[in-house]
């Protein structure tokens, strides 16, 4: 299948389809590919970790599957749609490594979490899922004017703010909702970014080495939160350098070093020689060395 193939058009039509589907994806910034012939399917509700040495193409793969880069060959689909044309952004929550943005930016935790609702506001709010004008707009002229004004100005509704409050509650950040994000520790900050993803009511959570620079105690709480969210049905796709955390928390591991060296259950990964092949012969799990 070529890179131009397009999947089903609507989210409803994709029910039961893979959340992420990469087929023979190859990509390079220069003539040398960074990612080569990678095929990967992530089904709804899975907790998948992508591991690999530095420079193995993990972050590039993440950008390909999110549609931020277009494959040189192969195809990348999100929820059944071509990834680079996927426009249902609220279904994806993204948490970056050391998500610190502007260092001195005066912005509160609540304002950061609020961004998760931005994909829900705007003119699309005036249409139903089938593209028709929403019922309220046809009935009440005053509502029509108000709703159009709110949609054009991107104003958040009461339900949007309720979603923000719920997300803050889930990650235990209520007490810090009105504090500047720059005043928080690394772990607290990552919780705020998880809350932003939750506020968008994302079906897929993509995390790019989210615990780099986070203290050990916060890391444990962070993974507990991910496990809880996954138990509620959210698909988790984690790019992680900490193999110990991956083995402890993920259900499935994809080991990458330009190409896929392993793709399967975590316990099989531990038993396999994929790690040694992908990282080099000296690589071992710490637990194995200690044992």
């Amino acid at each position, binding site marked *: 299948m070529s890179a131009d193939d397009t999947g089903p058009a609507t989210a409803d039509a994709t029910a039961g389809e893979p959340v992420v589907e990469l087929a023979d994806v190859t990509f390079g910034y220069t003539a040398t590919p960074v990612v080569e012939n990678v095929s990967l399917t992530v089904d709804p509700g899975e907790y998948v970790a992508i591991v690999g040495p530095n420079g193995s193409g993990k972050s590039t793969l993440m950008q390909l599957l999110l549609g931020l880069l277009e494959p040189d060959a192969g195809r990348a689909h999100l929820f059944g749609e071509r990834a680079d044309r996927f426009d249902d*952004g609220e279904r994806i929550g993204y948490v970056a490594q050391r998500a610190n943005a502007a260092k001195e*930016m005066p912005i509160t935790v609540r304002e950061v979490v609020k961004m998760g609702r*931005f994909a829900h506001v705007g003119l699309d709010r005036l249409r139903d899922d089938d593209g028709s004008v929403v019922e309220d707009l046809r009935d009440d002229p005053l509502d029509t004017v108000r709703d159009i004004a709110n949609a054009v100005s991107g104003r958040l509704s009461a339900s949007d703010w309720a979603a923000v409050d719920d997300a803050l509650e889930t990650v*235990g950040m209520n*007490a810090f909702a009105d504090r500047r994000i720059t005043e928080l520790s690394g772990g607290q900050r990552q*919780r705020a970014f998880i809350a932003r993803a939750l506020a968008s009511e994302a079906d897929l959570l993509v995390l790019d080495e989210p615990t780099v620079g986070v203290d050990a105690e916060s890391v444990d*709480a962070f993974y507990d939160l991910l496990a809880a969210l996954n138990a509620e049905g959210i698909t988790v796709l984690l790019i992680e350098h900490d193999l110990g955390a991956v083995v402890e928390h993920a259900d499935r591991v994809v080991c990458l070093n330009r190409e896929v060296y392993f793709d399967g259950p975590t316990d099989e990964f531990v038993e396999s020689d994929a790690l040694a092949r992908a990282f080099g012969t000296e690589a071992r799990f710490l637990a194995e060395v200690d044992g």
Partner: protein
Amino acid sequence: MSADVAAPLLANVLAALDPSLLLPLQNGLGAAGDLVFGVLLWFLEQWYWLMDWVYYFTGLEMVNPRYRFMHRAILVGLCIGVMAPLIGTFLVHRQLALIGDALAHTGFAGVAVGLFLNAVLDLGVSPYLTAVVVAMIAALFIELISEVTDAYNDVSMAIVLSTGFALGTTLISLNAGGLAVGVNQFLFGNLSTVSPQSAAILLVLFAVIVGTVAVTRNQLLYVTFDETAAAVSGISVNWYNRVMVMLTAMVVVGAMQIMGVILVAAMLVVPVAGATQVSRSFSESLLVSVVLAELAVLLGIGVAYYGGVTAGGVIVLVAVGIYVCAVAVGKLQSVRGEQTTPDMGSIEADGTTRTGDD
């Protein structure tokens, strides 16, 4: 076919068939322009009336009804005090503080183009209009250079800044005798040269900038704070980057009238830097930066009028003084904040929360 493609195509076809067919179109555009300009002049009249009342109540000589140029300068200053920090807040936090400088220099080139065209072709076009056009094109070039060459933003800004200034000085040197005198007011700004036409142009820029930010503030904030997450959420980052730099070009040219090319960038940066020190939230920082900018503009214009000095320089000096005060207040707030840090809620494995130390 989209309207922006169809309109010029239709105009070209009509012109090819019979140029006289274009006349109704030109007349229509001219009438619309006259209507808008008439409304703006009516607004200016109301502003004069308001300033007259301020004079009768306060007795301030600088708002004397005889000095209409001061009334216009104050209006322009107040508009700049809103526009500049409104855009500057997004720029500063994207680490693009110096883009204002780059666009001011291209605005200077635009002024030189306008003066040159007026001198050579006797077009009678406002140099501020040509400055707006040239600065907006330059703004797009800054984005284009960064996107196409993957260069750092400051590299593309430096290239555009140098090109703009080089173009301006070249055009001036081509017709030095007639142009050199007029250029000083654009380099250093001047309260007394804010004509009704310039004030009207600025009011249009003000409406466009405030309206655009009001409608796109969510997207601009998201792109400013986390570009990758914004892209993942479906926001067209490149498109909003272009919107931002074009709005910046408009602010710069608008503010050039009283600030001058050399100092205009300060209004984009200094009030925002001060507000960042004392604000806890983004929305608060927007509001505080506007208040600080208005304070600097009004105090600066007052000092410039009574002291007989250049307004641009005084406004910037006042803004920097306010910034220093804001830094001191911010440090005091930080010390007090450290003493009142609350406990952190933590997470249970089932997704519920409990209170306690993190």
